[in-house]
Every structure is written in C-alpha cells, then in structure tokens.
C-alpha cells in the first residue's frame, strides 16, 4: 500500500537529528515541521533571511514583515536571527545547512534533479532551489514515485531542464526509500512501503537502481 503524503512527510522527519539546521521546501516538505520528534531541537532556516522559524502566527501576531520563502506569514522562535539574502545564501552555499527537503518532477539515477521548469509552459523561475541542491549537505527529495499519468519520475536521465547535477542524497516516495551510494553512483533501495515489493519498485522505476541487501519496511 502506497504511503500517504502524511506518511512520506513523517518518514522524511525521521532523517532529522538533534541540533540540525534544516531548510524545508514549499509544499509537502513544509509539513515535515509538524513531525519533528518530541525533545529534538531542530532549527528551520528560511532563505529569505531567518534562522529559527516558529509556528504560524495567531491572528493577532500576523506581521507583514515576517514571512517564509513561500510568502506565508510566520513567527520566529526565541533565539532566532534575521539576516540579508546574501548572508542567507552564504549559509546555504557554504555548506552550513545540514539538510533540505524538496519536491521534484524528475530525479535521475545519478542524482540529478529537475524541479523548476517545463519547456513550453510559463517559467516562473528557480528561486532558491538551485542554491539549495548545490550547497546543502544532505538533500532529500519527497515526491510520488510516478506522475499522474503513471509514468516513473525516477529516470535514467532527466528530460526536463535540470535544477542541479549529482546532488540528491535520498528519495522518499509513496513506494520506497532510496539512498545514493556515492561510490557506485546509483540509488540503493533500502526501505519499502508496507505491501510493496522490490520487484514492483524496480518495475515502476525507469532507472538503474540497486536493491539493497537488507531492505526493510518503512516505519511510519
């Protein structure tokens, strides 16, 4: 049985570690904030210039000068700091963010990612995505394994224009968890959704992947 969005998000949250500095992409990745394990101290960075995102504001707390990268009103937690966009991307580009979680349209077998433009459609821009995939220490993609037409999103080579090359460390889909093996330059299947078989994943993946020796069931 395929994982729900909620379950994918929860599995992604299991990658967090105490003290981690994390950037969450717009959409599904944002929800990871709801699953930070009790007692674990994780600091969320917003690339528009904040370290230490707090919960969404109450009606009274809403402040037009305090938004996240998705332009939503937010709050800041005690110990937070504000800085410029240049300083924010020093932090990102310089390797000072431990982990980011992003959505994707395609991921290639060597860890390339495409998630910013579809030729022929209106291009809105890449925002901070190219900097994040190039600079963050561990880059995780959360997405459905196949698109709405049932076509695989994990491919030999991306057909869409790239956001970054060789930069994805881990993919969490509704079917499985794949981890990049930096020596072999291929993703290794490490976890399966309940009731999903390795054969099914291989069949639904348009790329060369390695089935790990010890494939477990995703704990959700």
């Amino acid at each position, binding site marked *: 049985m395929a994982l729900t969005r909620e379950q994918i998000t929860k599995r992604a949250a299991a990658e967090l570690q105490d003290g981690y500095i994390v950037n969450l992409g717009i959409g599904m990745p944002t929800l990871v904030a709801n699953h930070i394990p009790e007692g674990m101290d994780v600091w969320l960075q917003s690339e528009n210039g904040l370290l230490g995102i707090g919960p969404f504001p109450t009606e009274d707390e809403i402040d037009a000068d305090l*938004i996240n990268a998705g*332009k939503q009103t937010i709050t800041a937690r005690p110990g937070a700091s*504000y800085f410029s966009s240049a300083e*924010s*991307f020093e932090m990102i580009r310089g390797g000072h963010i431990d982990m980011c979680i992003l959505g994707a349209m395609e991921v290639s077998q060597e860890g390339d990612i495409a998630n910013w433009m579809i030729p022929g459609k209106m291009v*809105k*821009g890449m925002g901070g995505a190219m900097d994040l995939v*190039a600079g963050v220490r561990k880059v995780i993609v959360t997405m459905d394994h196949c698109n709405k037409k049932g076509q695989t999103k994990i491919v030999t080579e991306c057909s869409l224009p790239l956001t970054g090359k060789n930069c994805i460390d881990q993919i969490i889909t509704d079917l499985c968890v794949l981890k990049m093996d930096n020596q072999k330059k291929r993703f290794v299947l490490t976890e399966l959704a309940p009731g999903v078989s390795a054969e099914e994943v291989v069949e639904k993946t348009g790329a060369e992947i390695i089935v790990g020796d010890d494939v477990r069931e995703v704990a959700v």
Partner: protein
Amino acid sequence: MADKVLSDAVQALADLRDRGVIYDGMTVMVGGFGLCGIPEHLIQALRDTGVKEITCVSNNAGVDDWGLGLLLQTRQIKKMISSYVGENAIFEKQFIEGDLEVEFNPQGTLAERIRAGGAGIPAFYTATGYGTLVAEGKETREFDPPLLCAKVNAGTARRRPFVMETSLYADLALIKAHKADPFGNLVYRKTARNFNPMMATAAAFVVAEVDEMVGVGDLDPECIHTPGSYVHRVVNTVSEKRIEQRTTR
C-alpha cells in the same frame, strides 16, 4: 551636513533625471522578497517619472496591481533580472508575448552578484547552477570546494565544477528600511531586510524609504545594517505592507 532627508518619494527622485541618474535604458535595483520589504512609494514615484526601457534587478516582480506590477502595467520595464516571478498575470502575458525580457538567476547567485557589485568584486565562482541552463555560455572550472580544506569534512563535501558569475551594479537602488537617521544609517525589520542591504551597496545612487526617522546617534552603532555612507536620500513614508499569504495557526 548635506541634508539627505526629503519630504516625499516624488521629491526624492525629482531631480535625478537632470543629474543623469534616471534615463531611458537605466538599470534599477528594487529591494524586497515578494511584497515584503518593497519600497512601495519609491516604485510609484519612479513610475511617475515616466522613465522607459528599465532593466530591473529584483528578486520578484510584484503582483498585478502592486509593487513592480505597477511598472509592468505601464510597460516601463524592458528586462527583469529575478529569481522567481510566479504571482503576476501581467508579467506572464508580456513575457509570453516577448515584450518583456527575463533573466532568471538562482536566488543565491542573484544575492551574491549584487553583493559582489557593491564590494568591487567583478566576478566569482559558485557551484550553484552547474550543469543547468543557468551555466550555459559561462566559464566553468574545477576547484576544491572550500569545505574540503578542513580534514574533518573530507568525504562529505562534494567535489565539483564551479560556474563563473559576474557582478551586478545599478544606476539607482530603491530601498525599503524600517528606521533611518539623517546621515542615512539604516535598520531593517525582520524578513523585510532580504535583498535591501546588498542593493544599498550596489548602485550609484541610493534612495531609501523608511517607517520611522530618528535622530543622529539614536541608532545603536552595533546594529546599523547599512551605514549612512551608502545612502544618498531618505524619505519617511507610511507603508501599506500588503500580505500575499495570510497564514495562521
């Protein structure tokens, strides 16, 4: 001391055409992220100068009826250098019809290009965009990533090629800050800071609009985000501060 404080946004730009700062074909930097921290009044004052063929450096392009959307309505912008422009139907129409040129930069590259312009750095290398459309036509070369120089990072830092990016510099920067003193020292507020501080260093002429004027010496010298030497003019305004995504708990 030369008085930098003007009565309103229109006055702040009034003589800039005569001074050669505002001219058809000029380059303008405009602070803000979405509608947060944009110089609302200065954008309108720039529109009212009637200047045409603007190249505009700004992370976003406003919405249809606010921010830079106002300059798009009047077709005064020839080219945008931005990282994301998703919230604007006028933009989309002009872009698709080929009336508007757009250069997309990764957000961090855009921020760094502006900062480099202000810092006298004509070019720098970044891993961002390597192997993508952004790197096309640009020089790429291999370096050890800075992180690799520390032994404890060995193996964790990705060795890869870097792309050469050049700096950005403008004729005019329009800045939104929270407080200013008469020397032009600026303090920003929360995430309304965003692109404003770098832009204040990367233009030949810098005008800021602020929520509040204070006296010289009233700002904590440890916490001045933009020293007054970068700022040519200041106006005190009351901002509307529109919100794009009102999200609550």
